[in-house]
């Protein structure tokens, strides 16, 4: 007999027009032919109702992994397992999605069939770290499920103090704003660090996120230790006929208020004949005007990326944005991509050696200063890395001349 539980509070969440996760879990509990799934999901509903009644969580972590790896599993043992025994062990497997989150129905059905054999039948695409979350299985079945899906092409993601599963936007596959091959960048970076992902040994987590343009749909600057953002350095492409068509449709006032006046660096000017002038040297590639008029304005053709390092959430010193460490680099040749991976390697090596336990890259940089970090990974300072120069005179600078000479040499090299 499958044990069932009263769930009056959860039942309320089956009402209303938005699809209900409770209805989904209940359908597994009541209608799934497999007794293991019925038992686990009924038990899960019972524990969740208990949480709703007492306003407390009852899951505890632990140590579970698969043979050969140290991470990739979120172990969950119930603190109230005696009352809800069928979900006493309810671990999540973090599985890496294809870069860009593309699936065929055939592949999803194959995963569903495997999960039906070994798990609770609950899955999320995707968790906030970008993994497919297969939610709810026992310690033993964790291994069996992984063995099965690993054979047909799926690998675990990161959990714990390690390189984490990366994320990238749909980008070049279906977006005119894309200035990068997000898919290639994503896979090159993360697949170069699989040992650091599967065997957690870093001071804390390290995340890569890739967005194809400065709209940064992957929240990379705010959330990634290493954010790669596609951009361009030549002139944006303007289709003046489409500008005129847009003005005809929306009115001149609309384009002045919503395009020209919203440019953060005042780089746009509407001419008397309804053509648009762009001051490309002062365009900061914010994307606003391209977002408003995607048919009339496009990114330039000289694509590359900007790299920012150190974004993270609140714990422990507060939220930090990533900081520019590479204003622009081309990603065309194999050597360009190799250089990108090399910078990532330098960064992770430096992080592994210099961060304190449970310290993210952003916090480490906050503690040691950006310049020490740049010197550690072999990058030169650049005024694009700052909002403004130093305001305080309290700094020792007796080797000013040598540092100024380095700048002059780099400028001369660039000029030649």
């Amino acid at each position, binding site marked *: 007999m499958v044990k069932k539980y009263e769930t009056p509070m959860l039942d309320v969440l089956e009402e209303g027009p*938005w*699809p209900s*996760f409770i*209805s*989904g*879990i209940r359908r*597994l509990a009541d209608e799934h032919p497999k007794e293991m799934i019925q038992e686990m999901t009924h038990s899960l509903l019972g524990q969740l109702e208990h*949480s709703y009644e*007492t*306003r407390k969580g009852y*899951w505890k972590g632990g140590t579970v992994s698969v*043979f050969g790896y140290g991470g990739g599993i*979120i172990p*969950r043992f119930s603190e109230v397992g005696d009352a809800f025994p069928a979900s006493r062990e309810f671990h*999540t497997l973090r599985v*890496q*999605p*294809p870069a*860009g*989150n*593309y*699936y*065929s129905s*055939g592949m*999803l*059905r194959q995963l*569903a069939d495997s999960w039906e054999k070994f798990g609770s039948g609950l899955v*999320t695409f*995707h*968790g906030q770290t970008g993994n497919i979350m297969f*939610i709810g299985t026992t310690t033993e079945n964790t291994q069996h499920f992984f*063995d099965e899906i*690993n054979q047909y092409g799926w690998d675990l993601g990161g959990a714990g103090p390690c390189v984490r599963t990366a994320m990238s*936007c749909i980008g*070049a*596959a*279906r977006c*005119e704003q894309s200035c990068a*091959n997000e898919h290639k960048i*994503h896979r090159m970076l993360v*697949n170069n660090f699989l040992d650091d*992902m*599967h065997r957690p040994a870093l001071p804390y987590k390290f995340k890569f996120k890739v967005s194809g343009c*400065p*709209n*940064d*749909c992957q929240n*990379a*600057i705010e959330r990634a230790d290493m954010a790669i953002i596609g951009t361009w350095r030549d002139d944006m492409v303007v289709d003046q006929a489409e500008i005129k068509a847009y003005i005809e449709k929306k009115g001149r006032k609309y384009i002045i208020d*919503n395009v020209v006046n919203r440019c953060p660096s005042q780089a746009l000017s509407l001419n008397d004949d309804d053509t648009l002038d762009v001051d490309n040297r002062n365009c900061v*590639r914010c994307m606003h005007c391209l977002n408003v008029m995607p*048919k009339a304005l*496009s990114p330039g053709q000289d694509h590359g990326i900007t790299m920012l390092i150190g974004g993270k*959430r*609140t714990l422990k*010193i*507060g*939220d930090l944005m990533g900081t520019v460490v590479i204003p622009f680099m081309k990603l065309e040749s194999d050597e360009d991509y190799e250089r990108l991976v090399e910078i990532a390697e330098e960064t992770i090596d430096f992080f592994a050696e210099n961060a304190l*336990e*449970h310290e993210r890259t952003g916090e480490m940089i906050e503690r040691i200063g950006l310049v020490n970090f740049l010197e550690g990974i072999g990058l030169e300072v650049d005024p694009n890395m700052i909002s403004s120069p130093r305001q305080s005179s309290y700094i020792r600078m007796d080797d000013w001349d040598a540092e100024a000479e380095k700048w002059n040499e780099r400028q001369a090299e660039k000029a030649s």
Partner: protein
Amino acid sequence: MSENATPRPPIESGCPDGFQYMHPVMVKNYGNWAYHEDPEPGVLLHVAKSGDKIWTVRCGTQRILDLFTLRKLCDIADEFADGYIHFTIRSNVEYMVADEAQVQPLIKAIKDAGFIVGGTRNSVAMISHTQGWLHCDIPGTDASGVVKSMMDELITEFQEWNMPNRVHITTSCCQINCGGQGDIAINIQHTKPPKINHDLVANVCERPSVVARCPVAAIRPALVNGKPSLEVDEKKCICCGACFPPCPPMQINDAEHSKLAVWIGGNHSNARSKPSFQKLVAAGIPNNPPRWPEATAIVKRILKVYKEDAKDWERINDWVDRIGWPRFFELTKLPFTKFHVDTWRGARASLNASTHIRF
């Protein structure tokens, strides 16, 4: 069992190649898209430089998917969308079709199956959220339940283009804020120090790590009832809960005193202004399952004022930058308190050092 006698070493294949699961029109035109249009809410049309077109229909789901629902999504893909599915960062499902005639039948199939078409352009997008009581080890609330309750109330805003610009809402079940930055964020805010079970600390917690984890150095080792444990200086404690994950006997969640707070103005995009972090606007909101009506009411109040007062293309942070914080509190009728004045690192940068004041 004999099959377990020799464990199988893992195949470290890493992140799979996405091209094998990508719609053929997207593979063909990879990196060569010209522009897009928004034919109707929830539908995108992308046009490639080759002239190829692809229509995308976006829909919201319950995010925590059961296998019945996952297979239903697959059935729709097979019957109406060439067998391909894409998931957005906010866990929406996207179906792509190369033939315009397939768009309306696809929309109908999605709606008939109970999913909600929308979430594009200037709508309220799907709320991004975390695991909560369903699966997290430290949650103060249940993200899935909060999200279900709010999306029930915001469904029209998801389905239509009613907002000045897009609105990203997030929730987080603890102050680590895994839900991330949002135009509006609904996050747990604890208001009392942890309650310590001194009988368990020595056996369960690595005490130096817990001491190091505290952002304000309020935790120190102590002998309590003759046992090695930890004590919290409650005058210093900011009730953040950072000690709870490494030391479960330091229970931070409290049925009454773990509240919800609402933050606004987080924006990941570089469009117009630089990316911004969210700012506190309301707190002390009861953590009230199963429907959290008080939190939803505040979110709806903020959305109403934003919709009425913001100009086209202003995200919530752009709007408040223009009208100023005093006007925000005036318009929303939310109380402004001493807790809104920042005291954390770099707080001086958030103070008004000018006579720029609106009357």
